[in-house]
């Protein structure tokens, strides 16, 4: 949105009012022909409140009254900036790492649970980022890999008592294979055709999980999955080793943190390798990339496979943490959520995606207080965020347009 132009704002405001007026008849008219506007007031008060809040924000931003708030913030920002200059990036890294290490000691279990969710989704977001952000292919069925990873560990754990750590690479492999299977028919497609095909594959995987009773136990899900375990030294009867299941929330937190750090490093390094460069070239201009010696089919498949690997790892952890999997966790709306994290955070930008995952997990949790309104607010927030920051919260330092978007 181009702010500043009064004209545009006025037009926009009129459109907004138009929309709200149109929503009105749906509010109070009931199917039996009666009108009950009493209940609708609460909705209107909410909407009016939110609008008023936004208006106040805009006004405060415009006028000097906000200087009261802005001045200290600006000073603080400046100080932080100065600090940022004084302190090298490594110091910040240490700070972030220490905060994330100390997190379970500072917070209660609800916060830890939300943090675990955030970290799982960071892994997912970064994995999808390889496909969407780096290689520039729109994937609406990404959650399928998450499902494959989760079921792989679940089945290995139930039937063969595989340990979590051993299952991780196996789950990753299976997800990668699934990625190649899904990727193969889509190689020749572009843009939105890709979107619907991946969406279709995602749905197919979910329906198979739901219907293949012998393997997946269908909608009943799989129960009794082992939590991740560790060999810990035991000193009671001399020195021995005992296998301990790490069920407690903070153990799980550290495991997923580890997974997440691995993902961040791996994605970062891939991005800055010859492979990442080739992906970027494909995203920028597929035709030219191929003419410059990049085997685009192989690299696209690789992008799917690598994206799937991180999805699979996250899935395996999800299974280990819930100790229960069922197909309900792998619906299209989950894929859309992960995509939203990537786009909202800023495609191709690792800190952006971390922030995006935080925003999209924490926002609905914050809105938990308003129960019924939470998804309404969430949807509106998503649109509003896109309107204000179409390139994402933290855009990648250089985000390329996808090749087919260029004219001519």
């Amino acid at each position: 949105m181009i702010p500043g132009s009064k004209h545009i704002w006025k037009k926009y405001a009129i459109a907004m009012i138009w929309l709200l007026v149109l929503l009105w008849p749906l509010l109070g008219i009931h199917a039996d022909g009666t009108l009950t506007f009493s209940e609708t007031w609460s909705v209107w008060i909410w909407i009016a409140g939110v609008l008023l809040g936004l208006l106040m924000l805009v006004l405060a931003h415009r006028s000097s009254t906000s200087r009261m708030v802005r001045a200290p913030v600006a000073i603080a920002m400046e100080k932080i900036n100065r600090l940022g200059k004084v302190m090298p990036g490594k110091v910040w890294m240490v700070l972030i790492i220490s905060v994330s290490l100390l997190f379970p000691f500072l917070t209660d279990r609800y916060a830890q649970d939300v943090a675990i969710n955030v970290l799982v989704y960071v892994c997912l977001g970064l994995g999808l980022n390889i496909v969407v952000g780096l290689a520039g292919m729109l994937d609406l069925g990404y959650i399928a890999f998450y499902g494959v990873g989760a079921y792989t560990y679940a089945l290995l754990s139930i039937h063969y008592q595989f340990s979590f750590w051993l299952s991780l690479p196996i789950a990753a492999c299976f997800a990668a294979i699934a990625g190649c299977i899904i990727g193969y028919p889509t190689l020749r497609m572009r843009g939105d055709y890709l979107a619907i095909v991946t969406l279709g594959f995602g749905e197919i995987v979910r329906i198979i999980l739901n219907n293949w009773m012998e393997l997946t136990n269908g909608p009943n899900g799989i129960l009794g999955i082992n939590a991740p375990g560790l060999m810990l030294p035991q000193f009671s009867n001399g020195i021995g080793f005992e296998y301990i299941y790490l069920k407690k929330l903070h153990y799980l937190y550290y495991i997923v943190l580890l997974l997440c750090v691995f993902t961040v490093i791996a994605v970062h390094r891939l991005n800055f390798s010859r492979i990442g460069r080739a992906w970027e070239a494909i995203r920028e201009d597929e035709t030219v990339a191929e003419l410059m010696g990049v085997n685009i089919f192989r690299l696209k498949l690789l992008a799917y496979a690598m994206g799937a690997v991180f999805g699979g790892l996250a899935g395996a952890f999800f299974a280990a943490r819930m100790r229960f999997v069922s197909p309900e966790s792998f619906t299209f709306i989950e894929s859309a959520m992960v995509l939203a994290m990537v786009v909202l955070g800023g495609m191709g930008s690792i800190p952006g995606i971390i922030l995006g995952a935080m925003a999209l997990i924490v926002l609905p949790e914050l809105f938990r207080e308003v129960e019924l309104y939470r998804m309404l607010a969430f949807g509106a927030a998503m649109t509003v965020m896109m309107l204000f920051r179409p390139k994402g919260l933290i855009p990648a330092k250089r985000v390329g347009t996808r090749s087919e978007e260029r004219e001519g």
Partner: protein
Amino acid sequence: MKKRLAVIMIALVSILFCISPAMAKTLTIGTMSPLTGPYAADGNDIANGAKTAVAIIEAEGGIPGYDKIEVVSQDTACDPRQAVAAANKLVNLGVVGVVGAYCSSSTIPASEVLNEEDIPMITPASTNEKVTERGLPYMFRVCGRDDDQSIAAGKFIKNYLKAKTVYIVDDKTTYSQGLAENVAKQCEKLGVSVVSHDHVNQGDKDFSAVLTKIKRANPDMLYMSLQNSSSGSLMAIQAKRFGLKCAILAQDAVYHPQFINIAKEAAQGVYFTFGYVDKTKPSYQKYYEKYKALFGEPGAYSAYAYDSAYVLLTAIKQAKSTDPAKIKAEIMGMNIQGASKPIKFFENGDSTANYIIQVVKGEEFVPFWNPETGTLY
């Protein structure tokens, strides 16, 4: 000027913060159910049922030692991940017990979380056997189990309808499919042949393909095991439109006033397996009046949710403590007439079941046949 404004604002904010923390002592219980998403209807019924129980207990004098009973409702959206988050949230809020959840796939992981903290959980709606068969000490169930219900259904098919062929349709959810399989087993045991066990998908609206198949198979009875009442009513409407002549038996998830509202003529004569609710009992009347006053017409799970919360609060009242072990002891010893049924718990946390056959007549469900005695009401 600016300084003064800032001081005033800080003062205002701190006053606001000071007021809100409880001067009064509050007892908090939680509910978990899908308040958004496809099962929001049942989810809201559950939250409302629990609130009704609180209202009644408070009207009867509340719980000694507490000035106020608060209900915190959390949304699970029928998604295991959100259910776990909701459970953790409830733990944080310091609830003494939880009523919920709805989908078995939410109840199972959420109960693991709650049991880690020894918080009693009473489910009003999750009928999967696994819910109570994992040996969790603080897991209770007020509604019936899939296997109980299928026995009643089997008896009805064999003894009353005297059907020879049955066509079973489920919509592939933990609950509906489990039940359908149990019914199929019962039928085989009783020598009724299952023509086909077909599946549709959850959320489908168009059943024309499967109904055409049923029409061709021409069974004596259609067993309809669907996850929610709206799917059930859609199937009933279309069955009628296709001119299906066989009897239709459905189960408790389809049992909802909505079913009759939507299906209208098509609902007439559809049979249901459902717990026997004696609407003449004062306990039911008490609940019904309060619920109606607060939230309007009750839904299928409202009464179970009400009973769950009622059992929990009564146990706390009698135990005079929120200690989980004591609450459990009280619950196990309980033998009361709830709104939905007489309630008595077994060792594993399940409670007595009393499934009967009901039928739609006019605008309501009426008791029809008693499987225990084999007699009509």
